[in-house]
């Protein structure tokens, strides 16, 4: 009763697909011209944007991250992969000090942003977070209108004029592929959106803030292939200017969008390197097992 033929069939159309979505991994269908993955050499040459040194992180007594050292290059996409619960989100939250909000947590080691220690007492967290935008794993729209959600960041950054705000909102929503669906209901509560719409709203919200570095925790987990493709396109577009860190469970996605990948396992950074290399020729058996789906 095996339905192998049907599955074969499914795969065929994807080969001719024009935008990259998860069912079409055989070729890299959607990398537009001029958007390309950085090679290992290029990565090595890239300016280091964030440098993580011997970072350990504790939830009360529980060590969630152990001695992580990683360099995140500028204008590249870095993907974090690893099994659920391995500490990807925790690490991401360390990068913009969102973990400060959780009581009883402790950080050891250093994270340098352009050479400045973000955990230094001199650091202004607000400025830090303005520069490092974040899309959370669980989308959390404010209980306000869609417009207010997206315009929140620009507003607190001092933009007052309705027209300017509207422009930013429109642009951000367009980039996150939500505009068409919500353009007629901008004043409706964001809580009335569907799961995937909320996710795209949160992406738009982060974009509206025009950050320097963008941390995205599974930004496409609730999205259909088409929307996913548009978000991936967006990432390609953004990486020309921004530094992007993305957490994803989708190996294809990681392979498609990232220049550098880091594999986490039980709080340890098992391996990191150029995506090309990590996926084709991992140094550690664990990595190999994970990306080939042999483990779990």
């Amino acid at each position, binding site marked *: 009763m095996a339905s192998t033929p049907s599955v074969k069939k499914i795969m065929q159309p994807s080969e001719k697909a024009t935008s990259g979505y998860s069912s079409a991994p055989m070729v890299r269908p959607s990398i537009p011209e001029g958007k390309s993955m950085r090679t290992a050499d290029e990565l090595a040459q890239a300016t280091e944007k964030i440098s993580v040194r011997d970072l350990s992180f504790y939830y009360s007594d529980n060590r969630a991250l152990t001695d992580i050292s990683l360099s995140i290059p500028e204008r590249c996409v870095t993907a974090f992969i690893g099994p659920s619960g391995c500490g990807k989100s925790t690490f991401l939250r360390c990068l913009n000090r969102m973990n400060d909000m959780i009581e009883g947590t402790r950080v050891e080691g250093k994270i340098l942003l352009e050479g*400045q220690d973000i955990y230094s007492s001199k650091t*202004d967290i607000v400025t830090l977070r303005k520069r490092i935008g974040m899309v959370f794993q669980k989308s959390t729209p404010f209980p306000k209108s869609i417009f207010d959600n997206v315009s929140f960041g620009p507003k607190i950054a001092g933009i007052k004029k309705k027209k300017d705000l509207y422009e930013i909102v429109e642009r951000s929503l367009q980039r996150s592929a939500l505009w068409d669906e919500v353009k007629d209901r901008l004043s409706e509560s964001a809580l009335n959106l569907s799961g995937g719409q909320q996710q795209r709203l949160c992406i738009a919200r982060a974009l509206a803030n025009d950050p*320097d570095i963008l941390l995205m925790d599974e930004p496409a987990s609730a999205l259909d292939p088409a929307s996913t493709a548009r978000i991936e396109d967006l990432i390609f577009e953004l990486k020309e200017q921004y530094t992007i860190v993305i957490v994803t469970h989708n190996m294809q996605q990681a392979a498609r969008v990232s220049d550098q990948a880091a594999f986490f396992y039980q709080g340890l950074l098992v391996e990191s390197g150029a995506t090309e290399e990590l996926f084709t020729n991992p140094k550690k058996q664990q990595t190999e097992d994970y990306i080939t789906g042999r483990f779990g």
Partner: protein
Amino acid sequence: MSTKLDIYTTKRRGRIANFLFTSICFLATITCVLMLLVLIWNIIIQGKGWLSWDFIERLPSRFPQKAGIKTALYGSIWLISLTALFSVPLGVGAAVYLEEYAPKSRWRKLIQLNISNLAGVPSIVYGILGLGLFVRALAFERSILSGALTLTLVVLPIIIMASQEALRAVPDSIRRSAYALGATRWQTVWYQVLPASLPGIMTGVILSLSRALGEAAPLLIVGAAAYVPFVPEKLSDEFTALPIQIFNWSARPQEDFHHLAAAGILVLLIVLVSMNAVAIFVRHKYGKKIRW
């Protein structure tokens, strides 16, 4: 492309607003604490030297040196226990009904308005109602029972409104999850919503019982006496209460009684704090965990 900001420097505008706001909030807090301290300090200064174990053990007397607060203390403990017994289930029940059961209709809005209005009805009016209803119509006479029932009416709106807000703060997703698991409405409320809203409900209970403990006027109307030389033993006994005794003492011409009144206030505060300790403990215990 965004202008790069040095993360070690803040934009001044935001920092000043933030600093001002923080300072104002902090000042507000300090003001409150100071006011409380001044108040309590005043009372302690006046009452110190008069507060003793004997003072708590003795019956009332017209000699300040011999006067004690025993009957008032017992009366208040009776009253407050009964009031808690009546008002907490009733108030929380009403809040649960309004938030979890009542269909969101005009009728519900009306009840809501009712309750807000009741909160603004002066306690003396409840005294008048209690006199007519409990003392006369239901023939409970001028007893502890009448007093407690009257106080129940006084504090009910506070408990209801505080509990309602606490219930409202529980995210709907919690309810949905419980319903999706086949929980009945009551099971959802009992196992999920109430525990999650317990801290807020406890605040309501603390506030309302505090108020009940300090309330004198409605009790005078329903017949609390000023001089009761025996400790109440049953619901139908005559009674007096701490605030009445305190008021009585502070209205007397002799200076010494004013000190006694201060000592009485200290006793009242001790009762208040120990009574609230339970509620505070509960709130503390549950209040910590729940941060969604």
